[in-house]
């Protein structure tokens, strides 16, 4: 008959666990979605876009009439449709992550595919919108409103392109029969980035299309 491990004998004798086996501070308790480092990037990007919002509104305070007149050149339906497209894509991504955790990899793969199609739809609508503006002689040099419009929506569109690549990676990972090591952290990090792309448009849409 073998004796129990030495640690069990020590603990059975009433010894306390090692002093460094502490509970995390209550502020730190919980599950971080994805990699912790990705959140530093996410918050940094959100701060950068917050500066964009403030710069735009400061410009509007200086040239209210010009902003109001220029805004009427925008087609609000484009912004609203793109909002619905991104919100739906976020639903697909959020559910895809849950399916991965539940082992429903094929369903997750299809959901990430649908989300990627939403990204393509967003970029297509954005391309049509830019094309119509340019066709009517409106470009980033027209005035400050359109400079902000093209620059901020253009930077957001670059995020959508990166997000599309991320979604295709998630789709690939979901399609593998052999899981990657730490794949859940990668998938959650990618999903977090995509949701950030969505939430930035949640502000850009009313700010640019409705607020002047």
């Amino acid at each position, binding site marked *: 008959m073998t004796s129990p491990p030495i640690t069990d004998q020590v603990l059975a004798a009433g010894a306390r666990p090692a002093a460094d086996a502490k509970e995390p501070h209550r502020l730190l308790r919980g599950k*971080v979605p994805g990699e912790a480092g990705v959140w530093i990037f996410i918050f940094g990007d959100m701060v950068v876009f917050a500066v964009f*919002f403030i710069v735009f*509104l400061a410009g509007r305070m200086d040239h209210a009439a010009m902003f109001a007149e220029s805004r009427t050149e925008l087609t609000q339906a484009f912004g609203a449709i793109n909002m619905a497209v991104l*919100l739906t894509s976020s639903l697909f991504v959020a*559910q895809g992550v849950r399916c991965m955790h539940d082992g429903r990899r094929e369903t997750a793969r299809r959901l990430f595919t649908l989300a990627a199609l939403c990204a393509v739809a967003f970029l297509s609508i954005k391309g049509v919108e830019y094309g119509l503006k340019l066709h009517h002689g409106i470009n980033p040099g027209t005035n400050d409103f359109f400079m902000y419009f093209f620059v901020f929506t253009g930077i957001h569109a670059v995020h959508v392109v990166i997000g599309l690549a991320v979604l295709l990676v998630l789709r690939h990972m979901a399609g593998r029969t052999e899981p990657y090591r730490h794949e859940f952290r990668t998938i959650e990090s990618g999903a977090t980035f995509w949701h950030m792309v969505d939430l930035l448009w949640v502000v850009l849409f009313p700010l640019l299309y409705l*607020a002047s």
Partner: protein
Amino acid sequence: MSGVFDRRLLVVWAALVGATAISFALGADHGGDSPGADTVGVSVGLAIAFAKIWVIGMEFMELRPAPMVLRGVFSLWCLAIGGTVITMFVMG
């Protein structure tokens, strides 16, 4: 469709899309006869936008079960930037 999607996620998505429709209705061009009402409408629309962002964070980005410090920083961004944006919009 409900077999694929968690009920809570579907409800959250429907609420977000509904809130978008409300803020669009509040902020869309109304003929320009009442700029004061438009200011109120758009301000409410902006407040709805930042509330939507908070919901996206808590539900889609899975911050609800995340450490308090992460939830706190995100919520602080929503409050601080939302408040600044609405204040600057009204002042403009």
